Structures are given as structure tokens and as C-alpha cells.
């Protein structure tokens, strides 16, 4: 009883001796790190979106003016549409092809390890480098694809990959899918290997077809992994920047401008920091929705265990 007042008088003493205090102390570095490098920039970004800040010059609070302007800016809405299209199409393709690849790699193939290693290549190559390679592949005059098809007599003139809005969107999505598949495939492969072989064997003995085994055993057991992998994949795709910046800079006529690239264009070369920040902030609801969907939609226990809702 005598020690108590002495202890409470010294905060340091309390921190060092109490279990909770010590815990707090140990968490402090991480908390400071998160505050400095995550909360502060995010908060600053949100704040800038409400100001008319320009590069190097502090802005004044202008309320929702940036958002009101963006609301009737067709270029902004086009970028929202492009971002949605890009994310949805690329993510679905990445998921389908990635899962397929994972299933193949999970079979007993010759040179299995070799294939598993090589599949990672597109993911390992720095994005800018692969984007530069795609830039040449899609060049309006020197595309290898056009060259081959022209020599085969399939087409008469080079394909206008990045000049036509539809082609340009398809081209950048294809490049993104190529780059994103390995991440999905390897992660799902890891998930597949955690599924006990005995379940499949038991089902096979009961006469289940391989399709039934896939839909009733593999898929439900894989959902937690799918949820995590696809959340990440969607987030990466949604915030993609490098690929677009190298390939088209958002052209032709903004047909491939994503919210991230538009935000950069307006904020840094354009100097309109406030407006750029507002575009970046406008991405947050979409990202939150994607996260919430995957966590509450895909991670429901019942569904994972094969039951209905």
C-alpha cells in the first residue's frame, strides 16, 4: 500500500512496471510510424482536397468547391468510368486465369518447380520495364503483333492499339492482366496446397465428379484466400498508375485516364494540388467499398462451409 502513491506519482514508473503500460510502450514505435507515414499524409490529402492549394503554395479552405467542379467535369467522370472498367474487367480476368493457372500448377506436371518459378516473372519485372516493353508491342507503327499479322496476310495495315479508344482500353487491360496473373496464381496455389488431399479422395470414393469436387470442396475451402488475394488485386488495379503513364498518359483523348493518372496530371505538372488531392480522395469510397465487399461478402462462414445464405 505504501508503494502505490509513489508509483502513480511517476508516469514513467507506471509505464515500466504495469503490464498495460509496458505494452503501450512497445506499441509506441509502430504507432508513431503509422501516424507519421499513414495517418498524417492521408489526413493532409483529405485537407488539401478542401483547399485551392497549388504546388509550393498553401491554399485557403474552399469547402466542397473542388468536388462541385469535379462533379460536372466530364473528364473526371470519364476517368471514373475508365477506372471502374479497368478494375472490373482486369480483376475478373486475373481471377479466372489465375485460378486456372493455379489449378494446373497444382497437378503433377513435369518440371513443376521450374514452371512455378517462371510464372512469377511478370510480377518480378519492374512495372515500368514491362510497361516499356508493352509500349513497343503496342506501337502504332512498329508493333510486333501487327508485323506478324501483316506478314501472315491477316491484316493490311498496323493495328491502332493505343489510338482507338476501345483498342486502347483493351490493350492497357491486357497489359495489366499479364502483369497481375502471377500474384493471383501463386497465392491461390498456396491456398490449394492447404486443402487436405484426404477430402478429395473421400469425395472421389463417394463417386463425386471432378467438377463436383471443385465446386463443393476446393472452391469453398479456397474462399478465404480468394477474398484476401482479390482484395489486394482489386486495390492494385484500382490504383494503377505506371502502366497508363508509360503507355498512353491517359490518351487517346482521355480514354484511358484513370483517377490516379488524372490526379497526378492535375496536381503535379498542372500544379493544382487541391484538385488533384480531391480526385485522389474521391478514390477512397471506391476502395473502401471493395474492401468491405470482400471482407463481409466473401468471408462469411456459412458460405465457406458450403451452405446457402
Amino acid at each position: 500500500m505504501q508503494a502505490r502513491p509513489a508509483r502513480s506519482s511517476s508516469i514513467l514508473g507506471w509505464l515500466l512496471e504495469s503490464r498495460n503500460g509496458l505494452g503501450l510502450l512497445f506499441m509506441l514505435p509502430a504507432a508513431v510510424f503509422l501516424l507519421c507515414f499513414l495517418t498524417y499524409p492521408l489526413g493532409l490529402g483529405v485537407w488539401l482536397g478542401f483547399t485551392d492549394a497549388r504546388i509550393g503554395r498553401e491554399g485557403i479552405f474552399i469547402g466542397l468547391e473542388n468536388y462541385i467542379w469535379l462533379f460536372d467535369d466530364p473528364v473526371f467522370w470519364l476517368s471514373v468510368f475508365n477506372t471502374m472498367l479497368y478494375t472490373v474487367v482486369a480483376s475478373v480476368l486475373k481471377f479466372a486465369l489465375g485460378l486456372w493457372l493455379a489449378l494446373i500448377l497444382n497437378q503433377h506436371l513435369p518440371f513443376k518447380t521450374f514452371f512455378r518459378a517462371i510464372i512469377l516473372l511478370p510480377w518480378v519485372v519492374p512495372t515500368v520495364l514491362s510497361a516499356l516493353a508493352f509500349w513497343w508491342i503496342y506501337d502504332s507503327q512498329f508493333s510486333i503483333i501487327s508485323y506478324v499479322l501483316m506478314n501472315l496476310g491477316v491484316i493490311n495495315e498496323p493495328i491502332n492499339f493505343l489510338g482507338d479508344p476501345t483498342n486502347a482500353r483493351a490493350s492497357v487491360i491486357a497489359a495489366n492482366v499479364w502483369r497481375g496473373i502471377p500474384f493471383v496464381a501463386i497465392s491461390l496455389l498456396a491456398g490449394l496446397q492447404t486443402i487436405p488431399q484426404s477430402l478429395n479422395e473421400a469425395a472421389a470414393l463417394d463417386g463425386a465428379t471432378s467438377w463436383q469436387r471443385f465446386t463443393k470442396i476446393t472452391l469453398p475451402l479456397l474462399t478465404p484466400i480468394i477474398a484476401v488475394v482479390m482484395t489486394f488485386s482489386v486495390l492494385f488495379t484500382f490504383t494503377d498508375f505506371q502502366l497508363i503513364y508509360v503507355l498512353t498518359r491517359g490518351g487517346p483523348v482521355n480514354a484511358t485516364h484513370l483517377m490516379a493518372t488524372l490526379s497526378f496530371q492535375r496536381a503535379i505538372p498542372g500544379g493544382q494540388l487541391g484538385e488533384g488531392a480531391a480526385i485522389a480522395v474521391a478514390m477512397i469510397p471506391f476502395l473502401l467499398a471493395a474492401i468491405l465487399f470482400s471482407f463481409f461478402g466473401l468471408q462469411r462462414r456459412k458460405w465457406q462451409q458450403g451452405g446457402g445464405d
Partner: protein
Amino acid sequence: MTINRRRFLSGTAGLAAGGLLAGTLGTRHALAQASASMFTPEEGATLRLLRWVPFVTGEEETWNANTAAFTEATGVEVRIDQESWEDVRPKAAVAANVGSGPDMVMSWFDDPFQYPDKLVDVTDLANALGEEHGGWYEGLEGYARQDDKFIAVPLCAIGNAICYRDSHMKAAGFSEFPQDTDGFLELCKAMKAKGTPAGFPHGKAVGDGNNYAHWLLWSHGGMTVDESGAVAINSPETKAAIDYAKALYETFIPGTESWLDINNNRAFLAGEVSLTANGVSLYYAAAKDEAMKEIAEDIRTTNLPVGPVGTSVELHQTSTISIFNHCQYPQAAKAYLAFMYQADRMNAWLEGASAYCCQALKGFENNPVWTSNPVHAPYAKASASLRPNGYAGPLGPASAGVMADYVLVDMFAEAVTGQRSAEEAISNAERRIARYYR
């Protein structure tokens, strides 16, 4: 070769001057011209210059040699930092407003107008230089002077000119390059018919795309805003410019709407297009490559044709140098700039840049570089035809924002690709411009 010899000579001259004066009281008497003796560096001064990454090695070498000669003559160390050209703007803006970092910046276009109150008034220096060297070109002066005050010293224009294949033009039935926009359209049609088409970028090419779009608009008398900064894009002139652009686009090689800055160079050097506009670097890319000798010998250059407006008007890239208020040694900085603009220094630099940089002062128009190769000649006129962006309005964040957001590039691209009608493209551009000039 000539450049190297020149550099060697100027270098030794600097050394000799420095050596002679080492024992005397000051260095000001060594410098013959008036502007040179106007400023005496502060005791113990050092300077830092932020510049864009050089495009031509000869330019960098002569600039550095001139700087070394300045250090030799005055004892003032000058550190030169390089940033890729698109990064100079944000770096300089932050330096200006934070109040630390480089003392001087070699920046692009209307950058000084983003933070005019953070810059040292250089009117005395600029006026002295102007008087000594035949005056500043009007367009370049526009990028440096706010009302009656110089907030920057114009450095150079990076010229843009048409590069074409002479043999292909002749094969299309033209012996002379047409000087007006109508004749130019006919030439492009004829070249298209011969299978040697032209190509200008309608994509997000920061340099070439903006040069082309501004020329289209200005040569037809269009303007983004009037003198007071009120939006003036919606005009019959703009409509005429768009109609002309559409007709010209019909004659282009397919795919120009995806072109970034490098695409026209690639297509030209591969023989896919026979006419485009570019800096002199395109010619040198061919001239330096043994395999492209044939193309290099066939390349001719000329200025962009004159439109209904009656005179040659172009954007070009423009660079100026400004001194930040936070510079501790403004006299030294002015002395440095005065030194770099001395006739022999500036001439050596212009020659080192091998026609890439066009003089800002009329007195340097007889620099031997312009006559050393006929290909260089059109680039000599860059500063004369140059018009500041955001014409006819004031320079500032609005003019810079409109260009960085590709408003004009988009307007023409929307119309020529048929994505919008000319009227819709104009009203969309009008909206976007109004936003920046609110």
C-alpha cells in the same frame, strides 16, 4: 571538332584571365562589357543552380566550362544540380515557397509567374543585357517580365520546326516547300497519295503535341483568353483551326492520336512518316547513325507554315533563369548570369548546343551555328516566332494549368478523331479554360 577547339580556347582564356587577376584587387575590370561590371559578388559567396537535364552534351559541356571560368575569375563556387525537365517545375515551386534549396533555377515556360513575389528583381541586369546585345525577343521577354519588372532572365527557346524528306516532297510534285497553311495541306495530301504521309502527334506529347496544337490555333487567329484573361476560345477562328486540323489529320499516318513525344521521331527515322515537326535532335539522331546516312542527307527543315493570321507564330519550349529571394548572394548570382551572357560565353554555349537552343537576345542571331548547316537555319527563327502560352492573357498558374492539362491538345484530338463535333470540342475546352481562369 570545332566545338571542342572553341571550348578549349575559351577555357584557356578564362584560365589566363583568372591567373592574371589573381593578385589584383578585384575581377570586375577583366570583364569588358558594362553588364559584367555592374555586380560584385559578396565575400565568400557560393551559388546553387537547378537546371533541366541537358539534351545535348555539347550544351552541358559549354555551360559547365563557362561556369568554371566564372569560378576561376571570381572565386565563387557554383554548384549545378540537374533535374529531369518535367520535375523542374514542382522542385522549383517548392524551393521558392519553402525558402531554401537552389539559389537560381533554369525553368520552363511561365514557371516564374507561379511565384513572382519569391523572385529577385533582375530588371537592372536584364535591361543592361538587352541594351548590350540588341534587345530581347518579344516572346521570350513575355516569359520573363511582369509589368515593368523582370522576374527572370530569358535564356533560350528550344526551337521546333518541320522536318521532312526532300526526295519524298519532290516525288509528290512539289519543288518548293509551301509557305502557307493551304499549300501545306495540299502538300500533305499529295504526300499521302504517294504513300509517304505526314504525322503530327495528337496524343499527350508534352512538347510536340502542345507545339502542334498551339500552332494550329494561333496560325488561324484563335486564342484561349483575351488580354484581360476572359475566355475567348469560342470563336470562328478556333472553328477554322479545327476544320483545318481535321483536313490535315486525314493525310496523316494512322495512329497519331496515341503518339507521345518520342513516337514521331521513331516513325520518321524508320521511314514511316516523311514529314513531322520536331527539335533539331531528330536530324542529329539520323546524322549520328551510319545506317541512317541516307535519311540524314534527305532531311530538310523549314518553319511551320503561316496561316490566315499572316505571320509565323509558334509556341516552342522556352527557358528562363530566375534568382530566388532566399538566395544569400544575389549580387553573385547576377554577376554569374551577367558572365554567362557575355558575348563570347553565350556564343560558345549556343554553338555547343548545336542549334538546339535559340538565342534570347537579338544580338546573337549571327551565331555561326545557324549557318554551319542548312538544317539549322529554321531553328534560328524560333525566338522571333515565339509567342507565350496562354495568349493573349496574362501568364500565371492559369496559363500553366491549361497547358499541363492538355486542354488544347484534347480539343483538337476530340475533333479530329470524331469523338466530338467541332462545336462540342470547343465548348468543352471553353469550360475547362474557364475553370483555370476563374
